[in-house]
């Protein structure tokens, strides 16, 4: 057992546990906090894979921006009480069945398809430094990149419009 592997297992267990707790916690605030932890652990995976840029972005966007937004919303709505009514039992049972079924199915699929995986190769090139990524992003993916910015702009305008109080509403 190499330290890397141990790290991976630890991180994986942490990720799954926090993800599960996110869903299972009754208090939305707790959920949000578990989700932050989940995001951070995923960042850990990225670092393990040496994807520094994505890891940083993950931290900033998810753990930072998005989660703050969520927390704000939760608090705005004053949802920190544990007053959520459960879904009907049959639905919950269905959810669990689906969960188990899906996991089994997907895992079986990937186990079955393992044979066509080749050897892990290493080109030796530095393919995931910020420098390389930036070149790819701003050369080949220039147009989608710009579209992404437009998308974000539109999302911002939309959000503002949606949340604005309509004056002439009775």
């Amino acid at each position, binding site marked *: 057992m190499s330290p890397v592997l141990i790290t991976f297992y630890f991180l994986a267990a942490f990720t799954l546990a926090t993800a599960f707790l996110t*869903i299972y916690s009754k208090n939305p605030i707790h959920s949000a906090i578990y989700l932050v932890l*989940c995001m951070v652990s*995923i960042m850990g995976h990225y670092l393990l*894979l040496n994807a520094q840029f994505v890891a940083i972005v993950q931290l900033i966007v998810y753990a930072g921006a998005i989660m703050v937004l969520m927390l704000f919303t939760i608090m705005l709505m004053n949802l920190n009480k544990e007053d959520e009514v459960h*879904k009907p039992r049959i639905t919950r049972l269905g959810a669990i069945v689906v969960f188990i079924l899906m996991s089994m199915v997907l895992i079986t699929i990937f186990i079955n398809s393992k044979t066509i995986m080749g050897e892990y*190769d290493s080109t030796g090139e530095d*393919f995931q430094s910020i420098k390389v990524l930036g070149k790819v992003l701003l050369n080949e993916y220039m147009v989608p990149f710009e579209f992404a910015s437009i998308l974000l702009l539109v999302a911002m305008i*939309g959000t503002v419009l949606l949340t604005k109080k309509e004056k002439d509403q009775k």
Partner: protein
Amino acid sequence: MIENILNIIGIENYIFLTVLLFCIGVFGVLYRRNAIIVFMSIEIMLNAVNLLFVAFSTYHQDAEGQVFVFFSMAVAAAEVAVGLAILVSVFRNLGSIDIDNLKNLKG
């Protein structure tokens, strides 16, 4: 020459991890009534996919997978922003964000 880290961990471990993470997300969507938690479940699913992208990017030694993760994060950010805005206005109108109480999506 840097050794490929997947030689140590193995891509299948990542696959199992992401599958489980994704299924937890699905479970959350089905299980909860609180719209924000459902939202979070969706984020978990997105993250599971992102993680798989990055893992395969490493597997193929190719940066494009990470570029895609970048885009998906941008979309996720936009989605969260708009979605939460909608939730806020829903809450303002109905006083609740329980998805089972949202019954007006019909003509």
